[in-house]
């Protein structure tokens, strides 16, 4: 059966839905994927600031325990004399993790780029289900509201760690409405993610422009599509865990309550860990696959070369997607899991490094001998490569059972997942943001401020999370209110202080971005033009900046892959080193095979 796009090709005229006229339909309850993307961006960046502020409080506590918090202390911790108490500290690190993962990075990386890029890069007018898309955003906004509400109730917000492990997360460990509200927010944000995933999966399958075959998709779309599949399959498992935890907290059921608090044997806290990590490990890849995809395209664009072994990267990403569902047990080596099962999980975990290496090596081969343009997005892409490399390599230690027994629950784990999920996801998102900003808002972000932002970020991330790796290796446990109560950690006081100072610098550097963002969106920057980076994909070659409501006046017919850069014959014919995906160049000999056919 012909796809809708192919049918469109056959009909003479292409229908366009008229743009909305009322304020509400245009800016608030919009079904336009580009507006929804910008809504997700605002919502995500706002919570990124909240999550970052919480991180600064954690760093203050580790660097300067029992000392009054400057500036923030009087505002938020006035009741405690500006000090962070143990209970407050617990809530701070819990909400830092939850907010960053579910309410900051996910909306920016998946909500923003998924919504903005999928229709534009595959040559569609909008998502397959625009209304569902709108519901997805407003459901997400509801979940954020629940998180905000949790800060305002008696006993404060959640404090059971970002994983919300029972029995700590049950009423026995963390009484009060705050934890309940946050678990409910997790369920609601899961519903939002599922709605988004349904849209993404369906849109890529059904609405690709004519000629946009699977092997001509930009790698960004591959990353986002595979992410959407993982989201569709595994977010509902988190939903089931959150649901049962809510029942345990609110209706007295006993799924996770055990021991003295339980009746008739009670449930099993380990059950929650299974459910959580069945979701949780794919989630790690949910947060990195979009960044991988963005990197694949951006590195090729600014190295002015086709991506090295495109198919290899695609299949490697598919392989990672499949394997990511089979490794969750490596989070549970310490739960008394059978050694045989543990070894199986270890085997799959270490196997993932093979396709991951294919992806990383392809990046290196892509920039090898390229005519690199060191723009801000390119710098961020190179930075992402570096921090992801460090994060990935330290993962090998943790995937190995015998090493994990020693490193489990140390700061080494924290350093590892911050390099991958925080530094790499964040810098991948910034790569995309600096790169697509001209398309989203019609104006490019300032390059000089962007580079300041980049250097603060790369140095900050490397030193801060590197410091965590080192103190973890030395034995410092994660989540400790006062790590220095242990004599053998006291020698790490200086290292922790230095790490904290670099963390504050990292945080301060982010305001270069904030200033840049507002200056560009609300200031009087020059229009960026349709294709400022001189690249090949449809959103740049066939749509204005920002795109019209219906994206494309005529749906483009795609003729070639996404990275037709540096083709010598194209340069001879067109006088430039790039050829658009849908650009007709009759004199161009496309490939040896096509030439032979001709």
């Amino acid at each position, binding site marked *: *059966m012909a796809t*809708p796009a192919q*049918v469109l090709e056959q009909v003479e005229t292409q229908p366009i839905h008229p743009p909305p006229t009322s304020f509400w339909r245009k800016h608030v309850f919009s079904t336009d994927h580009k507006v929804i993307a910008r809504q997700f961006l605002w919502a995500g960046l706002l919570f990124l600031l909240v999550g970052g502020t919480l991180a600064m409080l954690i760093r203050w506590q580790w660097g300067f325990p029992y000392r009054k918090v400057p500036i923030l202390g009087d505002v938020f911790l006035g009741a405690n004399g500006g000090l962070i108490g143990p209970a407050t500290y617990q809530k701070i690190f819990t909400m830092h993790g939850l907010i960053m993962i579910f309410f900051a990075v996910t909306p920016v990386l998946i909500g923003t780029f998924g919504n903005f890029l999928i229709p534009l890069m595959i040559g569609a007018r909008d998502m397959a289900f625009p209304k569902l898309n709108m519901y997805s955003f407003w459901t997400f906004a509801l979940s954020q509201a629940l998180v905000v509400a949790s800060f305002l109730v008696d006993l404060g917000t959640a404090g059971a760690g970002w994983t919300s492990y029972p029995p700590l997360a049950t009423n026995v460990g963390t009484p009060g409405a705050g934890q309940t509200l946050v678990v409910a927010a997790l369920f609601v944000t899961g519903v939002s993610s599922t709605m988004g*995933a349904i849209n993404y999966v369906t849109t890529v399958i059904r609405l690709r422009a004519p000629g946009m075959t699977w092997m001509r998709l930009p790698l960004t779309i591959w990353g986002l599509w595979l992410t959407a599949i993982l989201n569709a399959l595994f977010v509902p498992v988190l939903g089931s865990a959150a649901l049962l935890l809510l029942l345990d907290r609110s209706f*007295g*059921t006993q799924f996770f309550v055990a021991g003295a608090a339980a009746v008739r044997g009670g449930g099993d806290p380990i059950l929650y860990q299974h459910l959580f990590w069945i979701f949780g490990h794919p989630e790690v890849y949910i947060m990195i696959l979009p960044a991988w995809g963005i990197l694949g395209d951006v590195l090729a664009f600014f190295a002015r070369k086709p991506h090295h072994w495109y198919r290899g990267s695609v299949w490697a990403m598919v392989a990672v997607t499949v394997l990511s569902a089979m490794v969750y047990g490596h989070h549970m080596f310490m739960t008394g899991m059978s050694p045989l099962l543990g070894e199986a999980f270890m085997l799959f975990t270490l196997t993932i490094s093979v396709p991951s290496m294919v992806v990383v090596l392809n990046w290196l081969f892509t920039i090898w001998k390229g005519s690199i343009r060191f723009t801000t997005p390119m710098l961020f892409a190179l930075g992402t490569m570096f921090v992801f490399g460090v994060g990935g390599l330290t993962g090998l230690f943790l995937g190995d059972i015998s090493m994990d027994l020693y490193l489990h629950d140390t700061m080494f784990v924290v350093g590892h997942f911050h390099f991958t999920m925080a530094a790499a996801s964040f810098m991948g998102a910034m790569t995309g943001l600096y790169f697509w900003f001209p398309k989203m808002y019609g104006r490019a972000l300032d390059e000089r401020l962007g580079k300041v932002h980049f250097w603060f970020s790369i140095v900050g991330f490397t030193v801060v999370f590197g410091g965590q790796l080192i103190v973890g290796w030395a034995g410092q446990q994660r989540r400790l209110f006062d790590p220095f109560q242990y004599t053998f950690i006291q020698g790490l006081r200086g290292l922790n202080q230095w790490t904290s100072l670099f963390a504050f610098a990292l945080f301060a550097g982010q305001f270069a971005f904030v200033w840049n963002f507002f200056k560009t969106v609300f200031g009087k920057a020059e229009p960026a033009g349709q294709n400022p980076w001189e690249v090949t994909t449809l959103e740049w070659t066939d749509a204005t900046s920002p795109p019209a409501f219906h994206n494309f006046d005529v749906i483009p017919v795609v003729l070639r892959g996404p990275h037709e850069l540096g083709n010598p014959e194209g340069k001879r014919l067109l006088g430039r080193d790039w050829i658009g995906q849908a650009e007709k160049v009759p004199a161009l000999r496309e490939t040896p095979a096509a030439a032979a056919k001709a």
Partner: protein
Amino acid sequence: MGAVSSTAASPSPDGSLPRGRVIPLRRPGEAATAWLGMVVFLGSWAMMFAGLFFSYGLVRLRSPAWPPLDQPSLPLLLPGVNVAVVLLSEGALVLALRWLRGGKPRPAAAALAGATLLGATFLALQSVVWVSLWDAGLRPDGGPYPSVFYALTVFHALHVAVGLVALAWLAGRALASGLGPPGRQALRLWGMYWHFVGAVWVAMYLAVYVV
């Protein structure tokens, strides 16, 4: 299919479309796209139920006795009747769609109403089961056994209730004015949902009540 609007404007000589004209969006292949979206949704939601069944299995494996000796065992008859009710309701829905496609709106509307009534019967019978067990002393806070029973059956019943509202709305429209192509499309999609909920019930009957 073939829903491309004939009022669409033709491109002007310079290739751009004339602005300012209202052109309705009727994408070709919309039905197949909606079908795929529904399949992805149901596959996704099935994982949620899989998570619940997995939890049930693990909790039950850890329990010394199931059901505990001092707690009532679950009835087989009424939930079993409910399996038949669900299957009949699904059958009525299949017939309704077939008759709609065959151009018989009146029997189709009747079948749709029948499917709705059977769905309501399911909830009524399930309520009887809950009430009788509650009266026999089975409460959600009585340990893992009642936890599993109430969580799984109530969560499923909520899904039935959602489907029931949709079916009732569609049946009302079918009886009042008949279903046009959009209504038929809605019925087809809600039918998929209804079959999904029915399949979950059969699995739940076997796993929770029988085994």
